[in-house]
């Protein structure tokens, strides 16, 4: 299903080009700008849906809608865009969440032009990250998205916004250096110099090289995802950013890390993935349990949710490490699902903040009586977050659990420990989410709100939340409808990764001389690697 029209270029560049017009728009009260930006967002979303619906083949695991233009031939930099089963759902997510966050920022009165300009620029950059198939272009898009986030936090954030923004930019910028080094190293490795990600994936690297590059990339993406112990920028950034920005931060930006790990570490550095996968699994468990515990101790609403993101992204790591189709499918689903749920929760906390003017749980209480609709929506979103069946979070986590439990790549003891500990997260999640609900909405109304009019949710606010909750419930009720759109791709990635397992084990690294026997796929006789990998 090829087409001559450059769909992806249009989709990627439309918001950026449109944003350039914002400074010259005639707009006195900051009202034209928001309608204009919303319209651009909606048009882009419609274009994406149209392009995927008519020109994307859901049964094809390869890159589709490929476009290549020479950009800077001197550098070998190409403008190469394409989507496949892993990026396609994320492009949709990015577009939906960003459009909704512009609607969420409806009441931004301070410098609305700059605000919407940055939002649109970020829109382009996010889609660019997911579509870029040239590693330099990917890097450029990755960097391009950092700057608007930085400015958005540092201008529209909470009281500690400068600290948070600086921390964010430092963490991610240092991470970016690793990406750049790794990308260049990969590009120049061997005889032919290329930046094309598909060709990079086909290069035959030495194992030591792969391990080094893998380590560099996992640090960079580990900051983004985030992986313990590189997560500490996240509570500050999420806690200080205003609600629309937090929506994008939690909803889309974290997924860039997960996406990049699958795209590069798993797909391109498959051999090294064999050695790193157990580490990823352990880090995933640490993320789940550690994130949940810290979240439980937080007294600030948004910080509590930020740590809940850390906890939930642990499942993505587990799924990536599982070496099964189901686990990988679950990891992608968990990213989408968390994107929607976290966006909804952050949005609702913004809605609450607008009324109570505090994020401290101690100062809230008894809001349920005056804000029943917000209470109801908050409860639904929290239930989704604690993986209640019938909503998407459950399906993602269940798939990861079953995928990991049935993995052939680990010993039973290791699987038992990993599954057992990550299941502890199931007990901790309701503890922090339900006590959050209890402290916010249950009980007698806090005396601080005496005389403060606490309005219930406005139609616009219900609408934004509903747009996020409908896909959450839809996926939860019938996940196959959604997972089959990318299933062929995750199957391909997982089987590719497992193929590599057999080849890796035949050329054992000197470091791990214990590895003697080839761990054939689903065989019972496979040797053990450090007692972990079968």
């Amino acid at each position, binding site marked *: 299903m090829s087409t001559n029209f450059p769909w992806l270029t249009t989709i990627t560049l439309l918001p950026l080009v449109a944003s350039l017009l914002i400074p010259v728009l005639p707009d006195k009260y900051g009202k034209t700008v928001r309608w204009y930006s919303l319209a651009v967002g909606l048009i882009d979303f419609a274009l994406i849906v149209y392009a995927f619906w008519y020109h994307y083949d859901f049964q094809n695991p390869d890159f589709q809608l490929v476009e290549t233009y020479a950009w800077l031939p001197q*550098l070998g930099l190409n403008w190469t865009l394409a989507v496949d089963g892993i990026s396609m759902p994320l492009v949709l997510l990015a577009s939906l969440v960003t459009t909704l966050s512009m609607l969420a920022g409806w009441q931004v009165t301070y410098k609305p032009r700059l605000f919407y300009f940055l939002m649109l620029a970020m829109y382009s950059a996010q889609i660019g990250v997911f579509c870029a198939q040239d590693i330099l272009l990917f890097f450029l898009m990755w960097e391009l998205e950092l700057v608007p986030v930085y400015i958005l936090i540092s201008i529209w954030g909470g009281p500690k916004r400068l600290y948070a923004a600086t921390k964010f930019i430092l963490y991610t910028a240092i991470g970016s250096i690793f990406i750049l080094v790794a990308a260049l190293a990969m590009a120049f490795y061997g005889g032919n110099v290329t930046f094309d990600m598909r060709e990079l994936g086909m290069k035959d690297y030495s194992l030591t090289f792969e391990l080094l590059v893998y380590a560099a990339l996992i640090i960079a993406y580990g900051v983004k995802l985030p992986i313990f112990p590189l997560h500490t920028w996240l509570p500050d950034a999420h806690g200080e950013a205003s609600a629309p920005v937090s929506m994008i931060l939690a909803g889309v930006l974290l997924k860039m890390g997960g996406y990049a790990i699958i795209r590069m570490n798993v797909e391109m550095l498959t051999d090294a993935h064999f050695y790193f996968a157990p580490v990823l699994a352990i880090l995933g468990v640490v993320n789940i349990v550690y994130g949940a515990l810290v979240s439980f101790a937080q007294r600030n609403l948004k910080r509590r949710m930020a740590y809940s993101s850390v906890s939930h992204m642990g499942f993505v790591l587990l799924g990536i490490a599982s070496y099964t189709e189901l686990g990988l499918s679950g990891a992608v689903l968990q990213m989408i699902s968390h994107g929607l749920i976290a966006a909804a929760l952050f949005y609702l906390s913004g809605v609450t903040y607008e009324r109570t003017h505090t994020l401290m749980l101690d100062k809230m209480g008894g809001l349920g009586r005056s804000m029943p609709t917000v209470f109801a929506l908050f409860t639904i979103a929290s239930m989704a977050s604690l993986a209640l069946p019938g909503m998407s979070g459950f399906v993602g986590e269940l798939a990861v659990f079953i995928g990991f439990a049935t993995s052939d790549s680990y010993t039973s003891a290791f699987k038992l420990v990993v599954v057992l500990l990550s299941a502890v997260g199931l007990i901790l999640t309701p503890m922090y989410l339900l006590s959050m609900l*209890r402290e916010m909405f249950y009980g007698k109304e806090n005396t601080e709100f005496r005389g403060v009019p606490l309005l219930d949710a406005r139609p616009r606010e219900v609408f934004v939340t509903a747009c996020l909750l409908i896909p959450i419930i839809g996926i939860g009720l019938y996940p196959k409808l959604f997972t089959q759109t990318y299933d062929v791709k995750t199957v391909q990635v997982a089987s590719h990764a497992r193929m590599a397992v057999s080849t890796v084990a035949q050329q054992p690294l000197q470091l791990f001389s214990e590895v003697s026997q080839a761990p054939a796929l689903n065989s019972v006789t496979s040797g053990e690697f450090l007692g972990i990998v079968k």
Partner: protein
Amino acid sequence: MEAIYEYAWLIPVLPLAGAMILGLGLISFGKATSQLRSPSSIFIVSLCGAAMVLSFALFWSQYQGHEPYTRMVEWASAGDFHLSMGYTIDHLTALMLVIVTTVAFLVMIYTDGYMAHDPGYVRFYAYLSLFSSSMLGLVVSPNLVQVYIFWELVGMCSYLLIGFWYDRKAAADACQKAFVTNRVGDFGLLLGMLGLYWATRSFEFDVIGDRLQQLIESGALSGAMAALFAVLVFLGPVAKSAQVPLHVWLPDAMEGPTPISALIHAATMVAAGVFLIARMFPVFEDIPTAMSIIAWTGTVTAFIGATIAITQNDIKKGLAYSTMSQLGYMVMGMGVGGYTAGMFHLMTHAYFKAMLFLCSGSVIHGMEGVVGHDPAYAQDMRMMGGLRKFMPITAITFLIGTLAISGIPPFAGFWSKDEIIGLVYEANPMMWLVAWITAGITAFYMFRMYFSTFEGRFRGADTSVRNQIKLEQLQEMGLSMGPGAMNPHELTMEAESDHAKGDHNTHGHHYSTSPHESPISMTLPLILLAVPSILVGLVGTPFANYFEAFIHPPGEVFDMTEAAAHFDLSEFLLMAGSSVGISLIGITLAVMMYLRKTIDPAAIAARIPALYQLSKNKWYFDDIYYNVFVLGSRRLARQVLEVDYKVVDGVVNLAGLVTLLTGEVLKYFENGRAQFYALIVFAAVLGLVIFSGIT
């Protein structure tokens, strides 16, 4: 007949649709929907009625010997993993469908009277309908994953309904406690499910059973592992069916409105654990370790529940502990291999306990007219007494329920409980002894409850009782009354005047001096439930066991005439006689202590203070859990936060600070020119790209 099977999916979907419509209405047009009281309730009740009619049709068809029917749709897939969902209609499902829909239907009618003055009337019906839907989805589940899904959903409905009066602090705490405790059970259920899938690659109940057996026989899976998985799965029922040690949520769950206590926390949801054990029977029955753990858990629960129920003064709490004890009997029966007996007791208990709870609701409704809308007074049996004169229908139905639960023939409870006790005797005499004593305690505390509520003198206007209750309440809140503290009486008076003021603000009507019988919408369900409470046991008599002919373990053949031929009258009389005997002893004691007042209960309590305190303080489970788990988890979380804040963040920040200081870029932040810095970073990176590209 096929058509009703094809449309059987409507049974859970109809109430779901009702709940969705009301829910959407409440979220979008909250005020307007809340006004539509009778249209909403009629709509929901008729949907539930339709589901009930369908269930009866299915039950009849199954009874006529129709083949079990299963229909599946592929629900999730990834690679060669496929997971199907659907529904299955067999004997067990048909029975459960009838139990759930009838109780739900009657409870919904009752709700109209009970919640008549509540502003959350419509919301309550939406929740009720959502719960019915989830519960019906649970019983039609063909595989373990679907059971897990609906298992969690009924848990969520329970959470919403316990916390229905969300401005009460006790309700807020109770609903969270219920959800988290149940999650502990679900944690085990999930792990067990994953383990069984890992071993057998299936989620189907009978397939798991067969393959597990093969694996153990061939030595591919050790028996210990199989037992571990079975016990983990059993952890689910332990939480849901309020078995020791995860029973602590059930008594607190009584903070929810009484119709909920009847429907969810007595008749249906808490019995789901027993239902799951029945479904998993093909897996459990071949693992002796698991079976004996199940049986002993049930036994201990039955005993502990009964001993706590003796000293409860809150009528609903008393019934809650009695539910826990009866659930223990069911689990015990299942554990000794009495699949039929356990299910039989589930059925009889569902009817008589739902009725008892609805009666208690009727009593509370009547008491509220005298003492006000404070659960501490309206539910305390010390303020009741003599209510038979004021509310005769409630009193008679409560007496029927009391006789049924005490195991007096020919009431329903006798037949089912006697069957369990008989089976337990064959399995383990020690266990039988505990079960037998518990039967006596049951009769005692139930009649204590009946006498102090409905007989004697009405004590509603008694201020000394009222003060006593208030004092206890304050003590529970942790106010020390030791020397040096302020005069306890002062506190009491203060609290009381507060209370009176509060009531006037919210309700502002004058209280009558005597309670009144509840409206017809509340008494009619009581009368209707009294019928099965008396008669339903007769379907499972040992000489003509129609129940066992219908419900027996999968794979076994049961011939009723043959079983009847084996029936030994003298043995039956001995077993039944001994259990009726101990019940009568219990009743006699209750008569002497609470009706004739020839024995003073306070004197007995004073003579055995340790045992009295043990029972009164619920075996200290709540205190221990609070100190160990609640405080422990909070402390752990705070410590981890400290680590995160000081160690993890500190180290990484330090590394960042060093870089910053050396680069002297710090001054840009101080000038607030952070954007400028971002541009520099961006430009530098770009430059680096270009530079590295050229070289």
